[in-house]
């Protein structure tokens, strides 16, 4: 059984890699298996984790207010299914509106605090070691870069003259950031493929001990 599992995994691995050459029957088969099996897997996970554990077990012995709360969630879920019926399909917009309103409200504050507020605070907070001239230059450079980056994102003014110049410096800083992220990721991506080759030539074919 274990050998069967390894062979299956090896065939699926080869099938996916073969896409790099071109779309082919093996890749199509892998894709079809992947979509069908994973969709089923996720539904099973949702069912047992959310509907059974969070809802069904949640209402067992819970206080009335908690029970009502959970039943309200189920009611919204059921409203979602009204889409299947033309005449009352518009009811499905209610849970959708609830989700959109809640996401907008919740994340508006979260992003405002964690992104805008905290980052401004971090930019003006001197590092613990601001002793060498290099530390001071870095501190000011980060502030200049952040400032110019914000100018680049300014919508109300055309990027012309000195303002345009600052926006240009802003985009240079953004490019350094993108380059840094890019360079940082390249190596780790290479190791992923080495991992798959290790499986094929080691675990499957036994060529690497």
């Amino acid at each position, binding site marked *: 059984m274990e050998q069967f*599992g390894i062979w299956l995994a090896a065939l699926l691995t080869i099938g996916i890699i073969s896409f790099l050459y071109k779309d082919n029957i093996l890749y199509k*088969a892998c894709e079809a298996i992947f979509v069908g099996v994973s969709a089923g897997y996720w539904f099973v996970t949702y069912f047992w984790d959310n509907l059974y554990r969070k809802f069904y077990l949640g209402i067992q012995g819970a206080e009335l207010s908690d029970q009502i709360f959970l039943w309200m969630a189920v009611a919204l879920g059921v409203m979602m299914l009204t889409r299947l019926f033309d005449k009352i399909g518009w009811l499905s*917009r209610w849970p959708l509106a609830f989700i959109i309103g809640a996401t907008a409200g919740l994340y508006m504050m979260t992003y405002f605090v964690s992104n805008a507020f905290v980052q401004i605070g971090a930019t003006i907070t001197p590092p613990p070691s601001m002793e060498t001239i290099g530390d001071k230059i870095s501190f000011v450079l980060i502030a200049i870069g952040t400032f110019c*980056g914000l100018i680049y994102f300014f919508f109300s003014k055309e990027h012309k003259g000195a303002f345009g110049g600052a926006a240009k410096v802003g985009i240079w800083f953004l490019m350094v950031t*993108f380059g840094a992220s890019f360079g940082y990721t390249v190596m780790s991506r290479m190791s992923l493929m080495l991992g798959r080759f290790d499986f094929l030539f080691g675990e499957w074919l036994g060529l690497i001990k």
Partner: protein
Amino acid sequence: MKRTVPLLITGIVGTVLIVSVLIPPAQSLGEDFSLFFDIIAVFAFFLGGGNLFRIHLKKVFHRKEDYGFSIVTLVGFLVTLTIGLFKIGNPEGISGSITAAGSGLQTIFVSIITPLSSTMYALLAFYVASASYRAFRAKNREATILLVSAFVILLGRTPLGMMLTGWIPEQFSIFQIPNLAVWIMNSANLAGQRSILIGVGLGVVAMSLRLILGMDRTYLGSDK
């Protein structure tokens, strides 16, 4: 009714959640929403999964091109559903965890989903190479900056960086590639990251307000 009520729901729920951050007794509303969302998502899956089933069944029924693969998808979907929902092969029976070692669902996960996922993820090695080729053909000043920055970081993370610049005297050690890489990561990179993050924070505020105030409402469909 068809649009006004949803708009009101969006507005009220959104406003309540904004204010809840400042009101200690209401601070758990975020977690409550998460629970609500999880339960609604299960019902939504009946629509999504149902749609997947319908599309592939239609393809098979009408003998469309490549319908054989639709059969594979349908079989995979139904088999996994059956094994998972009835916990077939689960050593602890129906009351056991769905991810229990040796269970049917766990076997499917390990033998099918994991190799497929890891290999798809591993394809990135090739894609990152082709993207590097494109990015590294510096066409203008911006692309050149990206190229130089990426190159320094890349070399800085490998022994090659030190081999190439290890001869630079100690007093100019900042120009040794590994040190330069650390400096880029902690200064210029940070500046770019921060301007993006601050902008995103403000962008989310404005977009959320547009949704809560009902100015952007296309997601609600029409009155008809």
